[in-house]
């Protein structure tokens, strides 16, 4: 009996450790490539230069400075270089930060207001709106993206920040998330405020909002992550390089620098790091509550 448990424990460890390696390996490899000096073929002589970045084992030695990867000195040169060879990269970073931050602010404010109204306040046609919103949740983006784009053409907002941002300022998912939170929120607090003579607005901003922090945090992470990683909407709505976001930027790297693996991996790692930082700082919201469903859309 005891032996059986022990065997199952060992198998569990093997499964988990193997999958942990599988999960991390692509990132580690991408990072190793990103700190390797450029290699390639001399266009004039046809001579190959640089190191083999697909070599196994990757000959890492971290017990010296600078550490060695693939048998040569590791360098952060590529991270500097991509800003030089693609001067737009910093602009894309800025665009993405702007896009993700404004969407997060908008969603937090507007979804929360809406969520509170739908959870607590009585107003005419509330149930009709609610049913209508619920129905839209099932509709895939492929259906709405074409008329959405045409609307932006009509408003003259194609390839502008407002065009990129406005359609995504609210989300029905966020509305339902907040509504659910407020439905479970104890009424007593609000009632006490009302007895004290506070109006609806004062109650909301002074009592409800400060107590809604857990739900707002979840909504913020969900929105920020979704915007940071969004590809299809920027692909449709932006047309000039100044307006690209980082995902579009990677697409640009892919088409323009497709043999420069070091540059591409540096760009990839650079856009992934902020998400990893956010993930690690809010890990509780991610892995413990399991509430951030459908992060990947």
């Amino acid at each position, binding site marked *: 009996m005891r032996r059986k448990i022990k065997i199952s424990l060992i198998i569990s460890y093997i499964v988990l450790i193997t999958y*942990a390696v599988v999960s991390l390996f692509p990132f580690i490899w991408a990072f190793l490539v990103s700190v390797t000096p450029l290699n390639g073929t001399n266009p004039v002589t046809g001579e190959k230069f640089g190191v083999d970045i697909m070599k196994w084992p990757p000959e890492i030695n971290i017990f010296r400075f600078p550490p060695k990867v693939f048998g040569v000195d590791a360098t952060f040169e590529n991270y500097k270089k991509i800003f030089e060879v693609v001067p737009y990269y910093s602009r894309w970073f800025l665009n993405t930060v702007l896009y993700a931050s404004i969407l997060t602010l908008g969603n937090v404010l507007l979804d929360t207001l809406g969520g509170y109204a739908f959870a607590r306040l009585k107003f005419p046609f509330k149930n009709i709106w609610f049913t209508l919103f619920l129905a839209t949740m099932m509709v895939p983006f492929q259906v709405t993206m074409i*008329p959405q784009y045409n609307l932006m053409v009509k408003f003259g907002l194609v390839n502008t920040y407002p065009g990129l941002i406005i359609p995504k300022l609210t989300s029905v998912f966020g509305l339902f998330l907040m509504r659910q939170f407020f439905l479970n929120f104890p009424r007593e607090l609000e009632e006490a405020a009302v007895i004290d003579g506070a109006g609806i607005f004062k109650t909301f901003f002074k009592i409800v909002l400060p107590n809604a922090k857990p739900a707002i945090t979840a909504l913020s992470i969900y929105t920020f992550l979704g915007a940071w990683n969004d590809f299809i909407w920027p692909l449709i709505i932006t047309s000039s390089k100044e307006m690209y976001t980082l995902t579009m930027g990677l697409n640009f790297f892919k088409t323009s620098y497709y043999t420069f693996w070091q540059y591409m991996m540096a760009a990839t790692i650079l856009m992934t790091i902020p998400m990893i930082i956010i993930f690690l700082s809010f890990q509780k919201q991610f*892995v413990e509550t399991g509430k951030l469903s459908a992060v990947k859309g």
Partner: protein
Amino acid sequence: MKRRTREAIAGYIFALPIILTVLIFTIYPIFAAFYYSFTDYNPLNARNLETKINPQEALEFHLGVFQTDVSSVDEIKDYFDLLSFIKYDVGVNLDENKEKIVLENFDSEKLLKDFVEGKLNKEMKLSKFMSEYLKSGAKYFKRYIPNFLGLENFKKMLNDQYFRISLFNAFFYTVIVVPVQTFLALVLAVAANSKIKGVKFFKLTFFIPSITSSAAISMIFWMIYSKPGILNRFLGYFGFQPIAWLENPNTALPAIMIMNIWTTAGYFMVTFLAGLQDIPKSIYEAARIDGATPGKIFWKIILPLLKPQILFVATMGTIGCMQVFDQIYFLIKNMRNITISFYIYKNAFEYGNMGYASALSLVLFVIILSLTFIQRKLVKETY
């Protein structure tokens, strides 16, 4: 004011921003997509009448003389060809019907007179230009009205090989990815639910792929799957010949499926683990005392108790897989390997067939809706 009225006003103030944005950017588009799907909506034609021209320059170009060199209508009358001027120099898209309207109603004399008098040297929209010089029928040039095709777009799908290929690929993708990732996530969750150390570390590690953008993941796997890439090196040890995984139409889609499973399995593992932790330990113990094997415990106890999570994971997986786009856009080079949502994008934004693309998107919508519905039924019945 009564409390009820105040509440209603406050309710609308609170909810108005989201009601408006959803109305404009989701609900209107759904109806518009429905309408487009019965037409030949073409974005180039739609924008055509909005473009601005300078009529004087267009006419100078057409006649081959400068306005300043002309003193009377008679000098230029013979060189003026109405249809070619409207079509090529002004640039209005004309079908047969519109050609007829132009030939019958266009006031060429007024145009030439204005030209001679120098009244044409100003920018204007094509729609305005047409309405100014058409004696009647200007409404056809006022704004873009796509031709109504009835069910033509839907009929077209039946004979469209790329529709069949892309829809089949999306199904194939879903049928493989959803069960594999669900099962893998379950196995990982069960393994993590035993008395092991470092559960948190494993959870965090498994989760990382799912918070990384699909664009970044595609780039990394593009390198791994490339012909000189690490995967081929690894397989080389076992004597396999290197293949360009993503260029080869037989391996490209499976390669992306593996990538997708890798991305989402760890994420869904967390969902299952949360479900497993809600199952009281005493149930396993009782089963063990009754002599149940681990396999039996998995199939007869764990699986039925995780029914809601399995339904959630399968539904989310199906919705995501049927719509898979980013990875296909980044990594697929062969039209044989495209999926339906990529084909929708291509039709709408590369071929300019927005009508047909909308019809395709509605078909996708109906398919996803039915699949979700079927899953719900199946899960309810099997346990």
